[in-house]
């Protein structure tokens, strides 16, 4: 058997028909796969469109309904003008302030937003039979630094 013979032999073997069922199986699988690929495409388009619409509506609602916070008006910083405290020669633990020159607070009025509860309490205090006016509690704290004195004022 020479080369041409066996090549022809193999070609004959290769040319033998394959069962049509095998071709049909391949076609069916391909068409089914293509069908599957097309359906999700439409479904995802729907989902994406719906999500985009919901996002747009949410942004519009947020812009129109939620009030913007008003900018806080800030006054000028408070400056205290007064004589510097003098330190006595006595025991180091005591601070003696200078003569009775009161500390002057120069202050720009700051609009204070009072909470409704505080307003109600103030009204109640003004009425007859309301709560008596009480003096605020003042606590004076001395620190190691003689130039720093802390006042804590409580209602």
């Amino acid at each position, binding site marked *: *058997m020479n*080369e041409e013979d*066996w*090549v022809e*032999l*193999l*070609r*004959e*073997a*290769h040319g*033998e028909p*394959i069962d049509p069922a*095998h*071709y049909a*199986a*391949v*076609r069916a*699988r*391909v*068409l089914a*796969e*293509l*069908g599957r690929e097309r359906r999700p495409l439409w479904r995802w388009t729907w989902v994406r469109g719906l999500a985009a619409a919901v996002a747009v509506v949410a942004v519009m609602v947020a812009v129109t309904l939620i009030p913007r916070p008003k900018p806080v008006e800030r006054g000028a910083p408070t400056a205290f003008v007064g004589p510097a405290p003098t330190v006595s020669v006595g025991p180091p633990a005591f601070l003696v302030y200078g003569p009775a020159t009161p500390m002057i607070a120069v202050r720009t009025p700051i609009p204070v937003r009072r909470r409704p509860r505080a307003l109600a309490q103030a009204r109640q205090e003004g009425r007859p039979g309301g709560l008596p006016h009480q003096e605020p509690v003042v606590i004076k704290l001395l620190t190691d630094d003689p130039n720093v004195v802390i006042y804590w004022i409580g209602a």
Partner: protein
Amino acid sequence: MKTLALEAMFDAVDRRAGDLASFDQTMRQYERLVLATALRLLGNLEDAQDASQEVFLRLYRNLRKLETEDHVRAWLYRVTVNVCHDAHRRRKPTAPVEEADAVAAADPPDAEDRRRALMLSLRRLSEKERAAVVLRDLEGLSTEEVARALGSREATVRSQISQARAKMREFLERYFRRRL
């Protein structure tokens, strides 16, 4: 030059609606080319069907890029070889090649014997040799077409075919000498 059938096929794909029926006709036109080639390259029908499925899916996605029927055929051969190459890399190692001695019948080779001899001889080749000899000797492509399909030079293809034929001749002579 586009054939009428191919133009009709492209038009159908462009329309997108109902194109699956048209593509079914396209598959019928090329199914033997793809499945038979894949069967010779992979050696078993199940893998060949998987490869054919992948090839036709790629064809569907790339059909509009292919201009003529000749382009479709060359493209199909090239993609079939590539898909079978990928399948080769993925699948588990196959069983050792069955020896020709295992065949014990003494009658002249019938169709089943020829098919068996073909499969066994192809399994003795390397992957590139097998692809070259399948396209050149079994599918009847020219050396130039084979080189284009395999992405090789013609000289390389000639060398691969020569080596493949030598191996197959040796195997087949032994195979049929035992038979007669």
